[in-house]
């Protein structure tokens, strides 16, 4: 009797078990997926990219549903980026962006990769779509502006830089510097000076000087870098501009001295060697200039070395 009751009870409970089994089974699977993802996350956090790669491949072999694959794609892509395999990272993000068209993160990653690789047209199209479809911060607007700047669409760049600057509250240094550059290209020097004044020092002095340089006002440019140099005597850019602007303001003795000082700090500076050569010839220090010329020929690698060769000052 007890045995019959037990069998009867089992038959009654069987449907409930059947209904509960998929839930029980799927919650086990979900737990498995979650644990695999957690392992991948842990590998990524410890920069074990080879492990991330193999774990992701194994994870995909389990055929998890689409919802559980998203994070795996992200970590795989980021790992490829870390390992320097940009083309593989790009492929992963392309696949992910196609599979998850509404996931902003993949599209942004794709756009960033195109941007870093110099494919500004492609990246601009994605950034523009992101801005149109989502609420995006100033960083994406700035990236779009930089795409336009690199492509030569200066008016479009100006519009986006203006938007980014407003969203950012005119705080980000690089954003403001790029805005100044764009305004210089458009010939809007007044606005460029206003924007340059908003940049925190010491970059403010460099930006102001740059605006004056492009206006052709080398004297005001020199005044700005001299102001900056008094406060920040070790800022390399300021020292470089000061040396150059002294030369082009015909202050050859000062330029010669500044170049000498610069070379003491940066002995391989081709810019300083070039200014020392040029100003040396201008003030009659031919022997020292020639010595520096020979040094530049021996140590120089770039465009400035070739520029000095073109002048052929030794024969002048």
């Amino acid at each position, binding site marked *: 009797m007890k045995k019959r009751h037990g069998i009867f009870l089992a038959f009654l409970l069987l449907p409930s078990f059947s209904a509960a089994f998929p839930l029980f089974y799927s919650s086990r699977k979900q737990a498995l997926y979650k644990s695999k993802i957690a392992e991948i996350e842990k590998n990524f956090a410890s920069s074990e990219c080879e492990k991330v790669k193999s774990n992701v491949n194994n994870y995909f072999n389990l055929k998890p549903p689409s919802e559980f694959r998203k994070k795996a794609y992200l970590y795989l892509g980021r790992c490829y980026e870390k390992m320097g395999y940009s083309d593989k990272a790009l492929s992963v993000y392309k696949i992910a962006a196609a599979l998850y068209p509404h996931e902003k993160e993949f599209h942004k990653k794709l756009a960033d990769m195109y941007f870093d690789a110099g494919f500004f047209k492609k990246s601009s199209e994605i950034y523009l779509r992101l801005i149109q479809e989502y609420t995006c911060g100033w960083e994406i607007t700035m990236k779009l502006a930089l795409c336009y700047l690199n*492509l*030569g669409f200066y008016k479009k760049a100006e519009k986006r830089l203006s938007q980014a600057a407003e969203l950012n509250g005119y705080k980000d240094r690089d954003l403001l510097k790029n805005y100044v550059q764009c305004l210089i290209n458009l010939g809007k020097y007044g606005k460029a000076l206003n924007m340059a004044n908003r940049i925190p020092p010491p970059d403010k002095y460099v930006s102001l000087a740059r605006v004056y340089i492009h206006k*052709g006002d080398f004297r005001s440019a020199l005044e700005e870098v001299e102001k900056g140099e008094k406060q920040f005597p070790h800022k390399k850019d300021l020292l470089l501009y000061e040396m150059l602007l002294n030369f082009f303001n015909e202050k050859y003795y000062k330029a010669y001295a500044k170049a000498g000082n610069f070379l003491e700090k940066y002995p391989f500076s081709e810019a300083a060697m070039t200014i020392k050569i040029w100003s040396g010839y201008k003030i009659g220090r031919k022997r020292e200039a020639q010595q520096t010329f020979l040094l530049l020929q021996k140590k120089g690698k770039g465009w*400035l070395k070739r520029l000095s060769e073109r002048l052929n000052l030794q024969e002048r």
Partner: protein
Amino acid sequence: MKNLFVSLHVVFLLCGISLSHCASINETSNEEDIFEEVLWAKIVSMPADKRLSVGIVLSGGGARGFAHTGVLDILEKNHFPIDMISGTSMGAVIGGLYASGMGVERIWKFASEADTKNVSKDFKGFSFLELLIKNKLISPKYITAFVNDNLGGKKFSELKIPFACVSMDFCTGEKIIFTRGALSLAVRASVNLPGMFEPIKYRHRYLVDGGVVDFLPVDAARHLGAKWILSSWVESDNNVLPRNVFSSLLQVIDIRGKILAQKSAARSDFIIKPDVKDIKVADFNKCYEAGNKGLIEAKKNIKKAKRKYIADSLPFVWRFF
């Protein structure tokens, strides 16, 4: 043990040298950029007689030629001196508009309006039918209206920038370089396709498109006094077999233009070649696209162009520093 110590020491030393080398390459390029910026601004702020005067040469190419708009845009935005301009065919149209003082923004508008202004109609439909049926060269009314509306009444002497354009005497084959007189007639003669459009009578000559004798008019720019030449050359793609009389004629002109341009290009100091090979001579609905391609290509090359100009100018301007 001693050997291991020495080997490790050598390895660390080599790492240090290579790292400092990498750092110095980055520093050098930043220094070069700053030097280039200041030197460039100094040179271009000098009057044209104290530096190398720059001639911009614009090739022919029909609708492809709108790429020159993008090139001029980038040159302007990067403060590249434009001391004189020469052009052939569509290069003469764009060059003439720019030299007359028309802003690049306004010329861009033409690029986007070219199709709606029916410029392409001179190359299609009833015009072409008239050519076949009457066996008579046509008078292109839309191109003529376009040129007259924008350049009519102007003389070369009134232009903001010295300008030259090229056409050919259909009877003698002589190259005719226009540098004076009525601007619209000169430009119209330069953009006058032989075999389709009626030659333009000018004094005792009958003039057709200059692209047949000088597709990239470097000589015309030198004639104006240019010491340094930047050429914008819009090349065609002739890999497609033409399917009709009109296409065959255009292909012949394109091939001839390419051969001539290769010789002229060798006499340029810098060349920009917008990637517009897929745009055909009469594809006036793609003018804006051509302009954008010209802009992108010019932007890619502007730094090289600046450095070349600086390097070529330096021996000349040194005495003025």
